């Protein structure tokens, strides 16, 4: 299949969605000029104005200017960044040692597997009781609890895929157990672990949005839930598109990083 046809076929579903939306919006507005479910362009313009409107509030006696777009994006990115960092840090360390050492595997695997089966949202009351309704901590905890067991198990599997011959070779070259674990196993598994992180971004964003719907004062998810009460789809849809762009950008950034720093991993 040539690339023009491939491109055309790829674009077609988007054109179909836009077409369906335009038709639905037109029909809705024909029946009711204040129809809000599928906003038209002028309603979107109004929504975007609200999103980027400069607002003021008092902090420590000083007037601080802000826009919804900036505060919500920064709050959400901060939370997702913290959750990603904590999840990667713990799951790589745990999965690596579980995959490399039988004793750690025997000790940790049952717990990690069991944790992986618990829906994180079912733990929400417990998290709130334990951590309170703190702005960031609770939300980061929900995201970490939701993704950590799955990523740990994934790291464990990636570690086990490192060829035994490679490990034996390192020992015969004088490597210690720690050096084999870090310089051979982790080094070879790392690009594949990053691939797993890419897959993890979807659930991570979902958990962020859900967690921001509870006891938050800012964040992309908070704004969506707040606007949902007034059916302000002209604010919600741009936010959803912005979240999609951020998610794609993060995914592509990791993909490019793998291509740039670990090109050998793409050839295996």
């Amino acid at each position, binding site marked *: 299949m040539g690339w023009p046809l491939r491109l055309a076929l790829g674009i077609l579903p988007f054109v179909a969605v836009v077409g369906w939306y335009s038709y639905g919006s037109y029909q809705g507005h024909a029946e009711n000029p204040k129809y809000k479910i599928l906003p038209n362009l002028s309603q979107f313009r109004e929504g975007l104005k609200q999103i980027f409107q400069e607002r003021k509030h008092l902090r420590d006696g000083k007037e601080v200017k802000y826009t919804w777009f900036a505060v919500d994006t920064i709050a959400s990115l901060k939370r997702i960044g913290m959750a990603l960092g904590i999840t990667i840090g713990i799951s790589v360390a745990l999965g690596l040692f579980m995959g490399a050492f039988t004793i750690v595997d025997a000790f940790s695997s049952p717990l990690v597997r069991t944790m992986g089966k618990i829906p994180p949202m079912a733990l929400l009351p417990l998290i709130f009781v334990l951590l309170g309704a703190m702005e960031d901590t609770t939300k980061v905890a929900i995201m970490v609890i939701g993704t950590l067991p799955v990523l740990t198990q994934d790291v464990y599997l990636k570690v086990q895929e490192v*060829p035994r*011959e*490679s490990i*034996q*070779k*390192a*020992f*015969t*070259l*004088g*490597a*210690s157990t*720690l*050096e084999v674990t*870090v*310089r*051979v196993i982790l*080094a*070879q598994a790392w690009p594949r672990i990053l691939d797993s992180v890419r897959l993890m971004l979807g659930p991570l964003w979902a958990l962020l949005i859900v967690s921001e719907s509870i006891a938050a004062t800012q964040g992309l998810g908070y704004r969506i839930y707040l606007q949902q009460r007034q059916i302000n789809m002209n604010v919600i849809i741009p936010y959803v598109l912005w979240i999609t762009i951020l998610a794609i950008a993060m995914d592509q950034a990791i993909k490019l990083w793998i291509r740039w720093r*670990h*090109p*050998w*991993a793409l*050839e*295996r």
Partner: protein
Amino acid sequence: MSRVLEIKSVVKRYWNPRSKRWEVILDRISFDVEAGEFIALVGPSGSGKTRLLNLVGGFESQNEGEVLIEGQRIGGPDRNRGIVTQQYSLFPNLTVLDNVAFGLDLEEFTLLNRWTRFLRYREARKGHRKRAMEYLEQVRLDTHAHKHPHQLSGGMRQRVAIAQALIMKPKVLMMDEPFGALDPEAREELQAAMIQTHEKERNTIVFVTHDLEEAAYLATRVLVLMPDKAALARGEGGHARIARDVRTPDRPRKDRRDDPEYWKLVKTIRTTLSA
């Protein structure tokens, strides 16, 4: 000549979960290897050649008997025994040069003190790469030093793997069907390189192969490992033993294939294997 490797009445059993019984793979294997000998280990599939190599490497331990390197019992794998396998011999994440220098880096600096003694490490690293480059020149791959293994052909990769093992000057170099996955041309080229290296450096080599002609061509001594067919039929495991221990014709290896003695030896090994 001094004795480098001693295998004394080694027995290796394994638990067969299907038959739910212990099966004997290697049954009282004994042989010695002198310094500078090139031993070829041949035998049918499943005769325990690789298992025996794993015992020498310290990757597995025997149930009975002893494996000694220069009179010392083997505890686990270490830098005294280098290995070249058919696949995955190189670290895919490192360049060719870094692969060859990998062992040298480890020899002097641990994971931690390469950071605590960073300046010394950086200086030493330069020296390691210089030495690695000399070995790459020997295997005629110096122009590929900055490539990654996936950018090389199978034959080139194996040449790098040999340089990577030899640079550590191991007491025994173990080679597990290193040329098994190569095309005939690359295989012949590597055989010639192997002979040249062995004649120059006189390394002690244990070489596992399926190819009898290769064994008789490269080695100074051929050991034939044969399973006991009756024991196999009874489901008791291979009970493999050394069925033949023969010296190859004492003449330059490059001329061996013209020697009737060489062909006689190949025939003898073949007869032993088909018995």
